[in-house]
Structure formats: C-alpha cells, structure tokens
C-alpha cells in the first residue's frame, strides 16, 4: 500500500512541480525532445528519454511519468506527443509539459507510445536521477532506490549534490547506499569502492549481495577481498533471516490451511457430516467476493478498497444460506448414517461445481486485491506481503470467534449436545432441527469466509474448492476430529512441516513427505494430535 501511495504522491508533487521550479530552460526548448518520444521504435524512444534526462530539468518528470504510466500518445494528425486519458468514448488530451488542455480526440486519432522492459528500466533510472531533489522525502528515497538499482553513473553528480543537502536520516542512508552502488558498479578508485563495500555490507540484503558479488568478481584484489568478506557477512545474515522467512511461510501456509479447514471442523468435526461439498462452499464464498467486487467496479469504483470488507458478510451469508438449504433438504435425513453423507455431498459438490461453471463460465474470474492487501513490506530481512499478513490475522480472528461461539454460548452448547446425542437433546427441549440447520450453515458460512481470503491468493474458478478439500480433511483429522484446537495446531503444523521440507526436498517431494508424515503420525496417535481420551470417546 505504501509504495503505491508514495508513487501517487510523487506523481502528484511532480505534476505540481513545474510551477514551483519555473524552469531555466523554457518549455519551448523541451518540446522537440518530447516530440522525439513518439518517433516510433523503442530505440528512438530510448534516445529521446536520454535527451530529456540530460536537461536535468524537473519539468520533464511529469512527461516521463506519463510515459511510464502508459498515458503518453502520439496524435496521428500532427505527430504531437500528448497525454491522453480516457474520457467517455474517446480521450481527453493535455500537453505533457504545460498540462494545458488540448481538447478531446477519438480513440483512433491517437496512438499509444509503447514501452518495453528495457524502456521501463531506463525510465525508472531517469526518474530516479531527476527526482533526487524532490521536496518530498519519500520521493527522494524512492529516487535513491531507483538509482541504487540502475547503478547509473550519470546520476552520481546529482546524488552527490542531493546528499549534501539531505537532512532526513533515512533518505540519507538510501542515498549513501545508492552512491555506493554506483561507485561499486563503475570505475571508482579502490578506496571509494572499499567504503562502498562497507556501506553495502551494512545494508545486508539480497540486492547488496548481488552488487557485492559483482565486485568480488571484477574488482581489484583489495576490493575483491573486502567484497568477499562482506559477502560472507551478508550471507550469514541472510541465512538467519532465511530461516525466519521460512517460519513465516509456514505460518502463512498454515493459516491458509486453517481457514480452509475450519469450516470443515464444524460440519465434519462437530457434526460428523463427511462434507465433500465443503470445498464448494469455499468456492461460493470466492464467487460472492467476485460479485461484490463487480458491483463495486460498476457503481462505486472509488470505494473498491472496501469491497473485501463488504464481501466478508456477503460471502458468509451466501455460503451459509446454501449450507442451510443443503442441510434442510438433504443432510437432515442422514443423521445417524454418516457414511451416506459422503455420497450425497459428493453429488452436491459435482452439481454445485457445474452450476457455477454454467453461470460464471469455466474460466477464472478476476478478484482484485485492495491496495491495503497488495505489495509487501520489509521487516528486517523478512519480506512480508500484506495479503498474507491479513490472511494470517483473519484466520486467527475467525478461529477465535468460532472457539468462543462453540465454547461459551448457549448455541455452542446446543450444537455439541445435538451432535453427541440428537434424540436425547431433542428430548431435553433443544430444537434439533434448527440447531442442525444453523450449525451446518455456520460451518458453510465460515467456508465462505475462507473463500474471500483464498480469492486473494488463488484462482477463482469452479475448481477452487477441489484444491482444498483434501488438505482440509487432512488437517481436521490430523488435529483430531471434534477438537478445534487440534485443527489450529494441525493446520499450523502441516503448514510448517511443508515449508520446512520444501527447500530441501522440493515442492513435489515435500508434499509426498508431508503425506507420509501424516500416515506415520496417525500410527502414533490414532485419534489425531489432540485426541480425546477416555471412556467418553469409546463409549
């Protein structure tokens, strides 16, 4: 989120910039250079960018940003380079340098200036060098990072000037590192390079290692030496963080498994229904998310970031309602015949998949991530993606809520009484039919919630549920049927084991090993991790 936000801010400030820095080079002098951007081939565009960059004029920043954003077009009529933004059926045109409106144009009247990866790299580097003096600290830091990546020797002067004026500590550090990167990649004197090595060693991440690697291969002996030592230290640090990173991956995979399984822990674990349609409840939740997002795209695109929050209750209710309908029409005839539920829910799962396929088509549907769930942040040497972080948080929230609902409420007590002895519960005055329907609805609704989360990381397709059903059963059974804590620990354990094995065994073998682990584990604990013991179970 922050990154996107910063870019927006940067763009905004940059747009405001021309008036602030009334240029020493007039707009008129830049115009032919700008025109050159639209000359045709990638190579020519690249040359034009270089030309613009050479001016060092902040006024070119918005032009290049427009190019980066894909807004820069050539007006076919006169070859002028303009900023064109969608407006109705055509485009609204503005002058890239002055921002003056140039009227509207038909879709076919302009042609987009294309960029490829090579150009994108040039653009980033150029923008970096140009925005090092931006009034906004964040923009300057971004700029420094861009220079760090581009290692563009031309930016060195700008960097030095900027460093001289910089007051913000964080930005300073970024600029120092950028400078180190440029120095190390270029042909600076050894002394400078060795200082640079030290700076990079302190930075200590993969990018730093990449640079140091380069230096260790090409530099003079002294530099090589320093770089090799620095690499060793960086690697050590990275290894440590790598272990932590793997833990995080395990936690994050575990929380996905937990989310997928927790609804099943209710319908299967508590109610004893071998619910083969569980995956489809998850899928329905994901499609509900899709529909909510479509509605937002249609009617309130500005509020798109909130769509997920709306999708949560909607998915819960939709999946829950489907669950209640299934319970009332099918499952309720099958209590006391748990095995038949397998057959019926399998049938339902086939039909639900096909229904969704018929309604929404067989292909994937796009569910977008709100900005606050996109991207990643660095925590020391850890890269933590926001999406995963929220899923972890969400999984634990759902788990906690369900635990409270089942343990501490009258409804929870009725559920457990009904599932343990339906007819006696009925004789005690508990309306078992209602409890059954609501319980199945609850489990399905939770599956729907899982669907919202999974839509963020996986395909939203009719097959979505199929991918989780087996894992979910494994988790619930591994943890011990009927024990929510078991489901929690089971999910985290399986996630952790999987991620622990993956680096050594690879994904395929890792998964096989996890399955074998489950088989062996069940031999040791035939009723799962959190086995209920005693007469109560055997009775």
């Amino acid at each position, binding site marked *: 989120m922050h*990154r996107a936000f910063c870019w927006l801010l940067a763009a905004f400030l940059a747009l405001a910039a021309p008036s602030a820095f009334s240029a020493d080079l007039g707009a008129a002098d830049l115009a032919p250079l700008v025109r050159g951007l639209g000359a045709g081939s*990638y190579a020519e565009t690249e040359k034009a960018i270089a030309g613009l960059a050479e001016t060092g004029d902040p006024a070119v920043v918005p032009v290049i940003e427009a190019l980066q954003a*894909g807004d820069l077009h050539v007006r076919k009529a006169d070859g002028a380079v303009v900023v064109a933004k969608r407006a109705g059926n055509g485009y609204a045109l503005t002058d890239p340098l002055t921002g003056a409106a140039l009227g509207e144009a038909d879709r076919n009247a302009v042609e987009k200036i*294309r960029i*490829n*990866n*090579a150009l*994108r*790299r040039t653009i*980033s580097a150029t923008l970096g060098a140009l925005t090092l003096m931006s009034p906004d600290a964040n923009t300057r830091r971004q700029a420094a990072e861009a220079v760090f*990546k581009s290692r563009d020797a031309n930016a060195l002067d700008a960097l030095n000037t900027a460093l001289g004026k910089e007051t913000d500590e964080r930005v300073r550090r970024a600029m120092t590192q950028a400078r180190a990167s440029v120095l190390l990649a270029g042909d600076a004197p050894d002394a400078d390079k060795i200082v640079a090595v030290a700076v990079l060693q302190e930075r200590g991440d*993969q*990018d730093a*290692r*990449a640079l*140091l*690697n*380069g230096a260790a*291969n090409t530099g003079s002996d002294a530099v090589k030496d320093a770089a090799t030592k620095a690499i060793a230290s960086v690697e050590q640090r990275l290894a440590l963080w790598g272990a932590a*990173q*793997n833990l995080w*991956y395990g936690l994050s*995979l575990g929380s*996905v498994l937990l989310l997928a399984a927790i609804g099943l822990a209710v319908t299967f674990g508590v109610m004893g229904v071998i619910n083969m349609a569980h995956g489809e409840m998850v899928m329905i939740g994901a499609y509900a998310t899709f529909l909510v997002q479509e509605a937002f795209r249609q009617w309130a695109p500005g509020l798109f970031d909130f769509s997920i929050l709306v999708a949560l209750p909607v998915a819960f209710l939709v999946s829950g309602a489907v669950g209640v309908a299934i319970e009332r029409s099918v499952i309720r005839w099958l209590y006391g015949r748990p095995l038949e539920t397998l057959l019926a829910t399998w049938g339902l799962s086939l039909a639900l*998949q*096909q229904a969704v*396929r018929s309604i929404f*088509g*067989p*292909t*994937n*549907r*796009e569910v*977008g*991530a709100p900005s606050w769930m*996109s*991207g*990643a942040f660095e925590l020391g040497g850890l*890269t933590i*993606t*926001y*999406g*995963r972080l929220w899923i972890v948080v969400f999984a634990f929230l759902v788990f906690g809520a369900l635990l409270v609902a089942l343990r501490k409420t009258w409804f929870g007590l009725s559920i457990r009484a009904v599932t343990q002895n339906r007819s006696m519960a009925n004789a005690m005055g508990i309306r078992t039919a209602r409890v059954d329907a609501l319980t199945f609805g609850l489990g399905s609704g939770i599956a729907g919630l899982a669907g919202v989360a999974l839509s*963020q*990381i*996986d*395909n939203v*397709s*009719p*097959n979505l549920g*199929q*991918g989780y059903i087996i894992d979910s059963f494994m988790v619930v059974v591994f943890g011990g049927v009927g024990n929510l804590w078991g489901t929690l620990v089971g999910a985290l354990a399986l996630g952790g084991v*999987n*991620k622990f094995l*993956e*680096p050594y065994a*690879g*994904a*395929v073998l890792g*998964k096989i090993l996890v399955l074998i682990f489950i088989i062996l584990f069940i031999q040791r604990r035939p009723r799962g991790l959190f086995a209920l013991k005693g007469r109560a179970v055997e009775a």
Partner: protein
Amino acid sequence: QDTIKVGILHSLSGTMAISETTLKDVMLMLIEEQNKKGGVLGKKLEPVVVDPASNWPLFAEKARELVSKDKVAAVFGCWTSVSRKSVLPVFEELNSVLFYPVQYEGEESSRNVFYTGAAPNQQAIPAVDYLAEKEGVQRWVLAGTDYVYPRTTNKILETYLKSKGVKSEDIMINYTPFGHADWQNIVADIKKFGSAGKKTAVVSTINGDANVPFYKELGNQGVKAQDIPVVAFSVGEEELAGIDTKPLVGHLAAWNYFMSVDTPENGDFIKKWQAYTKNDKRVTNDPMEAHYIGFNMWVKAVEKAGTTDSNAVIDSLVGVAVPNLTGGYSAMLPNHHITKPVLIGEVQENGQFETVSKTPGLVAGDEWSDFLPDSKDLISDWRAPMSCGNFNVKTGKCGGKGS
C-alpha cells in the same frame, strides 16, 4: 438429412474444463460459420460434443465412441499431452483424424494426428533467444509443473542454453505439482537466484491452475518485469483474465498468436467470437487460433479431396495453407506440424499482450528436437513413399533408432 459429423473432444468438466471449454465453443462457432457458408462438399457440418471430463482413459473411450459410433469425419480435441497420448492409439487403429491445438513437447508424429499448436522450436527457443539478446539475460530459472511437457521443454532448453555457453550454476530448475498454490518460497528463491549480480529471467512452463497464485505471489513480492522478467509458455489471455495484471506489466509470454495482434482477420475473428459468446469481454488465445487454422485446413483438404475419407484427407492435408490470424499463411508440413510465426509479448495492464518481437518469417514446427540426443537424427514425413513418423536419417530406416 445428410451431414458430415465433426467430433469435439474437449473436457467440459474437471480440472481441464477451465481451458478446454473455450475450445469447444470456438469449434462450435467455426462450424456454425462454415455452415452459413454452405457447409462442406455441399453438406452441413454437424458437431458432436462429448465430455471426456479431464479423465485420460475417458478420452480414449470417447474418441472411440466419436469415431466408431458417431462416425465423425475428424476430431478436434485434447489439451494435455497425456490426453493426446491416450487417444493416439485409437485414432491409429480406427484410422481417423485428430487436430491437436496446443503447444506441446514434440517427440511425436502420428499419421493420424495434425499438430496445430507449437512445437518447442516454435515457442521456447525463440523466447529464450529474445531474452538473451534483448534483455541480456545470463541466468535462467526454468520453472515448470512436473509433467512431460515442461520436463521436455526444459531439457531442450537446458541443452540449448548450455550450447550457448550458459554455465550449469546459472540455470535453476524447479518443478511443482499440478495446482500448486503456495508459491511463497519458490518466488523468494527466484528472487534470491536473481540477486547474484547477473541479469536473470524465469522461463515458466507452469501449467493451468497454478499460474494464478504464481503471478499473484510475483506481484505481491514485487518481482518486477524490469528486474526479473518471467516468460511463460502456458499463460495466455484466458489465464490473465483471472488476474489483476497491474503488478505484472512487462512479464512475457511466447505464443504464435496474441489477441492484440492488429490484423483484419484477427479483428474479424474477435468480433465474431464476442458476438457468438454474447460477451464483449471474452478474450481469444493461441489454441483458439490453432483450431481456427486446423479447422480451415481440414475444410480445404476435404474440398480438395472431394471426400471425407480419412486416407484421402490425410494425404491432401499436407501442403494445405490457410491464413492465420497474425497476417500470414500457415501451411501443413509433411510432418503434420504447421508453420507459424513466433510472437513474444509483454503483459499489459488490460490483461492483453503487446507484441515486442515477432520472427521475421514463419517457423516450421520441428517434431523431433535437434537438442535431444535420441531424436536429433529423426525426421518425420508422411508423404509417400517415405510415410514415416520417425525416419532415422543416420540409418536410413523408418522406426526410430532402429536396432
């Protein structure tokens, strides 16, 4: 009354429905179009659709049903290589015709199968060349789903790269199971591999469902195309339709067709397709074009032969050339593969690809890879008198290596 039946053998349910259903629809559209033009040999075409349900033995069973019970003149179908392998003996036994529209690993040539998708040399090798030349890539991650197509493609690429002087330590190979959903550490590994100070790219033969979570993870972990580009052989417009492509702009795919290709034929095709599906957002993709080409070739061959009889059609198909959708002609080669242009495209924000490179001419599909030791001496030519799918140029005999 009297019709010519055409079999459509694509999974409409199960794991492959996601890809294959579209191909069934495009076939129905093409047949409808053809019927509007009066059919073939004065007869209307009648599609026979069956659902092999992503189940490989069922593919063979349904193929047999189409050919022997429904007596179809030709079958258009299959996606995965294993489904093709499953039906192949059936087509050979019953001497019927299959058009196979998907890029595949090569190493096969059957008299009864016409391969309208890309062979490895029509996709993988040009893509790698592009990355090496235009992006200066020196380090390679070959990531794929664990099955034969990626394995073979990667084997070919490995040999090819090494022949170009790439060192072993600059190649990382990684396989994942079908439907792999958790890409966290693999993406992290890729980032790590890419931080060795050399320009790195990922060549992805990841297939099907696994792609969406893969790209979502790439986006979230901030693997930018300008830093570590990913070039995919199994990701087309249809797959991208399920992903938010903003973070993925610039990643690449190599195909023989992109929906964004600006030719009149393609514009027409897209318009018809969107009208047919009553959805102006429906996308087109490469295997659809392959069916378009294959179907038109078949029609042309049948008219040339004046009959739907398999032997006659098989013989007359070789040499048939029809327009493809990228502004040229594709011709059926004696090895039952076709000529195609190779396009490299970059992902755009709108889920389309923008062509950044196109081979100057057409590339002929090479069924037996020149980069595999056991197949480099083999060629295929189904014309008389050779009429052989695995002719060994060293021994001068038909039948593979011979012994």
